[in-house]
């Protein structure tokens, strides 16, 4: 067993989980909404990209570029039409609505695309690798990880260096006071969900190119994303990346010992962190 190899592959896998988690973290940070359909939305986006690739014959990256604005619009509309109506002090309605959405999406995809496993074809990139001397890494995992870092950099930049980010933070702190300053919290929420769906598109692109997917695997992605967010600590995007890496390394390590233990060891790592640091490793938000 090559420990360095396991560590490197685990870290790179963590990049994918961080991509799953960044959208969830963003939405929760701004409106305290836990979207139980997050995983299914990733799978939905993967099917959308696949559809564009197969009908227009485009390169997957261009297809994702085309899909992203559509996903933004979908997220925006979802927030405007559905989620804004149920947001409030009671956490029950948004949870139940997104749970209903999760089941509806899964079965809608099942009807539309059947239960067959699919993959977004990425050509030679799928198997290309880079020899770094001590370890060899695949281009695809490397690109995934770099994209995760890039997405988090971009989100942090939006949050802390733009007027929109200021509005995000103000609404997150206190929607009523923010609205006194001329911010429309519901509009801000819609933009935030739209933005989260753009991140979801990036996550879907790599999910679809790296491995097979089918309509039923959304909930498991939601769980990985959630674990990464909690390990990292609420409100910290870099923490989310760290959380993703911890899950990724734990899974790779577990799989190296016994392939059946891959998923389990990721969950156990999460429970361990929850036991030792209930608020995560880098908590920022108070709630």
């Amino acid at each position, binding site marked *: 067993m090559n420990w360095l190899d396991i560590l490197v592959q685990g870290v790179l896998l963590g990049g994918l989980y961080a991509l799953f988690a960044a959208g969830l973290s963003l939405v*929760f940070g701004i409106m*305290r*909404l*836990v979207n*139980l359909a997050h995983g299914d939305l990733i799978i939905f986006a993967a099917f959308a990209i696949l559809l564009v690739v197969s009908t227009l014959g485009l390169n997957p990256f261009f297809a994702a570029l085309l899909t992203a604005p559509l996903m933004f619009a979908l997220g925006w509309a979802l927030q405007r039409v*559905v989620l804004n*109506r*149920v947001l409030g002090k009671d*956490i*029950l*309605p*948004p*949870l*139940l*609505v997104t*749970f*209903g*959405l*999760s*089941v*509806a*999406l*899964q*079965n*809608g995809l*099942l*009807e539309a695309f059947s239960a067959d496993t699919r993959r977004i074809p990425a050509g030679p990139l799928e198997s290309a690798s880079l020899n770094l001397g001590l370890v060899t890494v695949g281009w695809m995992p490397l690109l995934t990880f770099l994209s995760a870092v890039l997405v988090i950099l971009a989100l942090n930049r939006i949050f802390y260096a733009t007027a929109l980010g200021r509005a995000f933070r103000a609404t997150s702190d206190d929607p009523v006071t923010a609205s006194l300053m001329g911010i429309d919290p519901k509009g801000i929420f819609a933009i935030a969900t739209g933005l989260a769906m753009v991140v979801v598109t990036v996550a879907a692109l790599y999910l679809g190119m790296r491995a097979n997917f089918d309509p039923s695997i959304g*909930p*498991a992605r*939601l*769980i990985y994303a*959630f*674990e990464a967010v*909690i390990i990292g600590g609420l409100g910290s995007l870099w923490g989310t990346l760290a959380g993703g890496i911890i899950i990724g390394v734990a899974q790779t390590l577990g799989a190296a010992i016994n392939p*059946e233990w891959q*998923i*389990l060891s990721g*969950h*156990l790592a*999460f*429970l361990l962190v*929850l*036991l030792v640091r*209930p608020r995560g490793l880098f908590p920022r938000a108070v*709630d």
Partner: protein
Amino acid sequence: MQPTVTTRTRAGTLTGLFALLLIAAGLALPAFASRSLIQDLFFILTMLTLAQLWNLLAGYGGLVSVGQQAFVGIGAYAMFAGVILWGMDPVLAIPLGGLAALALAIPTAFFAFRLAGAYFAIGTWVIAEVTRLLVAQWKTLGGGTGTSLPREATSNIIGVETIRALFDVREAAARDILAYWLALALAVLTIAAIYALLRNRLGLALAAVRDNAEAANSVGIDAGRIRWAVFLIAAAMTGLVGALIYVQTARISPDAAFSVTDWTAYVIFIVVIGGIGRIEGPILGVLVFYALQTLLADYGAWYLLTLGLIAIAVMLFAPRGLWGLISDRTGLQLFPVQRRLTGISFKGGQT
């Protein structure tokens, strides 16, 4: 007349009488009903019990769990363990299911209660997944592919011989009747227990914690302890239901026993559509659910798609469900838990 606080209403008393009649009819039903009706009723009664328990958690306790399949699954597996490993009678092994679920609920609560609000939901889901993956490693009980109850165990279930003689039916049908009676007993017991709970001090405390934990704390209610109590009670009962369901099915696999769709999604839809936070809600909900299932049975995924969309529509337009709509129009309460002041007559103009 002395002013008194009461929860009693005329509709409530009538419901009680009607319920007694219904229970008597339910007990006598196997004498007339076909086997498929008995099986359908078994399904309805077990789903109703699961829904009542989830309603107790989410609707009254404010604990939205998406991981109740953990307790169904562990309860079922504990019953299987009792039968296969220790040679117990399947029916007598059902209490093991309750005990196992209770034992699992303690670490689950320990972890999940560390997660505030909405994250509690996914936390319970993670624990259910961990339990499923661990149980799939249990090779003596079939590992990932599952196993069946041995024939010698299912053919000698206590009471089945008597039922066979009583109704003059085949052994398999007699087993269904026994499972149906147990499901009826469990459903009645669960509803009665929840109703009694909500009418006493604990129920009042529960509502207070759900509505405002800080305010409840300030009047001396230990919110943490109440949440623990409700979570453990619901888990243990859910484990019993799980064990009973798999006595009837007689075949188990980790994916089926820990299915989030079968044991949590359906249950949530039943409660949401019927009306959350009311005892009447799950009763109405399970009837709608059964009707939809019968109507849409041939359409596969469309059925779940429809259920999901209906649940969203209900949360958007009638957040207290169908029973909420009925109750708002008519003021009807079949299981009154609201405390009202009676014995005072207000004169015109005075307050």
